[in-house]
């Protein structure tokens, strides 16, 4: 039994099912992070004092991390473009880089957290730290999820290239949309928490 429009677009909408599905999922993620941003706004506005991000957080390190994540977005889209150009080796290279950069991001994050913990600064310290750890933590979990999915598509999942190259390319595109979204959240998270 075949489900229609898994690989060929429905003419009326111009979409395959997975493309619409992932965008709807991303819409729900916008609302999830939106709720946390809304919490940040309400907590900050209601606070008698609120530190500037640079007072407590390592802005240069986070700037580096921002560049790491943006670069990983480029390598991700390049990995998809490589598949579109039927270059599997190039795909492997770029996807591998994407995964690596994702791991670097998490490593730097872990280093940041470790620095805070060693100074006795935990989420319970203040609402500033509470929202800092929660927002970046949830984002970090999403990065981890993306790394896992990308690793599958780099590793055993890439076998599909031999049997159904177009379907595999679509899958990488869908994974890419998720990865870019994770980058997009950071683009807003970074200035909010670190630069204001």
């Amino acid at each position, binding site marked *: *039994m075949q*489900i*229609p*429009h898994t690989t060929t677009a*429905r003419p009326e909408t111009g979409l395959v099912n997975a493309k619409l599905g992932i965008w709807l*999922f991303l819409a729900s993620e916008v609302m*999830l992070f*939106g709720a946390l941003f*809304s919490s940040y706004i309400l907590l900050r506005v209601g606070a008698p004092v609120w530190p500037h991000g640079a007072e407590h957080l390592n802005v240069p390190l986070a700037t580096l991390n921002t560049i790491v994540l943006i670069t990983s977005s480029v390598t991700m889209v390049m990995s998809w473009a490589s598949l579109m150009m039927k270059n599997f080796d190039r795909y492997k290279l770029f996807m591998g880089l994407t995964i690596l950069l994702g791991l670097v991001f998490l490593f730097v994050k872990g280093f940041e957290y470790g620095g805070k913990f060693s100074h006795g600064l935990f989420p319970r310290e203040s609402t500033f730290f*509470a929202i800092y750890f929660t927002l970046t933590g949830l984002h970090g979990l999403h990065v981890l999820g993306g790394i896992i999915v990308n690793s599958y598509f780099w590793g055993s999942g890439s076998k599909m290239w031999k049997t159904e190259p177009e379907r595999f390319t679509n899958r990488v595109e869908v994974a890419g949309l998720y990865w870019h979204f994770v980058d997009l959240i950071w683009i807003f998270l970074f200035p909010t928490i670190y630069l204001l």
Partner: protein
Amino acid sequence: MEHVVTSEHAAHGIAHTEELSFWRKYVFALDHKVIGIQYLFTSLIFLLFGFTLMMIMRWQLAYPLEQVPIIGKLLGEANAPEGIMVPEFYNQLGAMHGTIMVFLGIVPLAVGAFGNFVLPLQIGAPDMAFPKLNMMSYWSYFLGGVTMLSSFFVPGGAANSGWTSYPPLSDIATFGQTMWLFGMVFLITSSLLGSINFIVTTIQLRAKGLTFMRLPFFVWAQLVTSFLLLLAFPPLEGAAVLQLMDRLAGTSFFLPSGLVVAGQPLSVSGGGSPLLWQHLFWFLAHPEVYVLILPAMGIVAEIIANNTRKPLWGYKSMVYALIFLGFMSFLVWAHHMFMTGMGTVISTFFQATTMIISIPSVVILSALLVSLWGGSIRFTTPMLFALAFLPMFGIGGLTGLPLGLAPTDIHLHDTYYVIGHFHYVVAPGTILALFAGIYYWFPKVTGRRMNDVLGKIHFWGTLVCMNLIFMPMFIQGLAGVSRRLYDGGQQYAHAQGVLHWNVVMSMAAWALFLFQIPFIINFFMSIRKGKRVSENPWQATTLEWAAAPSPPPHGNFLTTPEVYRGPYEYSVPGHEKDFTPQNEPDKV
């Protein structure tokens, strides 16, 4: 529920020829019909459990501080020493009754069961767009349910801060509250996966010729409901994460500065806002009430069209009203917060949006009512339930008006009036519609009909008892009796004049249980011994009846249907039969 796939079906090339193991076929099923039935049984069991919790509560309300009969000793020393329930246990019953009924009962039944089973059939699709995601939805729901139920057995018992889990109380509540939060995460995940599936399926898998304005109203209702679930649930998930952080990591997202508990100042950073929880919670919970009602309206619309033998009146207006309703539902939530100290400007905004949102509701209800005019009404069991829905939802909706207007809400907020209002919409409202749906689609699922005599006993008993339970709540609420009082208001002077209603309501509640017995017997008996019927016993126009066998095989249709007309072409002049199915081409 056996799908008998004969060799003729196999010859048409759409049958599933490999034999699946028991686990793949019935447990980790990928077929939307099996998953729908899984949701059906699980949600009905949860509904029964939530009902039982309420029956125990109603003993306490009618006979406060008296030993709970029969099961009193079984409740345990912590909950009911000497069989007399303690307030903390009453609060557990209250919080879990609400949670279980809404999140484990009604929504999984209305959306998970009905949506899953009927939607692909009504749009002419072989299954949902993402069968594996569908399976994960069900199991995530199941895990959420297990988490919620097992919370009764942990030290301190289940969550007891209301189904609304307001902090600061919920922040400092016992471990059961943490389990509630994890349970909610599972349930929200289930919802999210399901809503993505429903939306993509409806947009992408419609049969040829099935344009949006030819969709059965049931499908429209499920589509709008799915958008509500998709976009409104994540903020509650965010709030749950924040509350988990407060409870497990010692943060103060919802704890204001200077909070004192049992005479001791809490050693937390403070600086948080209890109102933040309320905003995030109600941002979901308001659209959630439309999730509770829209599928019911969808079911009632199908049954009314079918049993009046005429098209729905105002189909287009109903669809536009539905879309507008869904949109507005995101902009009214703070009407649950009128008493939190908001100023008149913002209060006016939310009162205005709340009044505006009543318009599409009235449009839909009116259209359904007008649809009856001039119809050849067949008083089948589903039709009885569907007809009763209309005035019951009317009462529920109308009683909401004084709550949506702040000046009257001052007196009615947090009283039994509120409980009466929302139960009218959900119990004699949605639940009656869901029963209607069960009687209506039973023949499609099983190839047999349910017994009409038992059905009519079930109907009348349920209708009368539900009114006896919920109507007096308005009286008590108007007298000022607060909700969530473990002794039903006994200690308050202003409650004395209306206390006797507690006994009436409790008796009616226990009687309501008795009237569900004919339904339970009917349901199980009819699966095996019900009268066998044809593929389309109701002579309906929609694809699930007109184009699929009963029960439908894997892949649903022997030949892929094509649609030529709208969903309710009943009694079309010039046509032989009084119904013209959607997949019947024009005679050339």
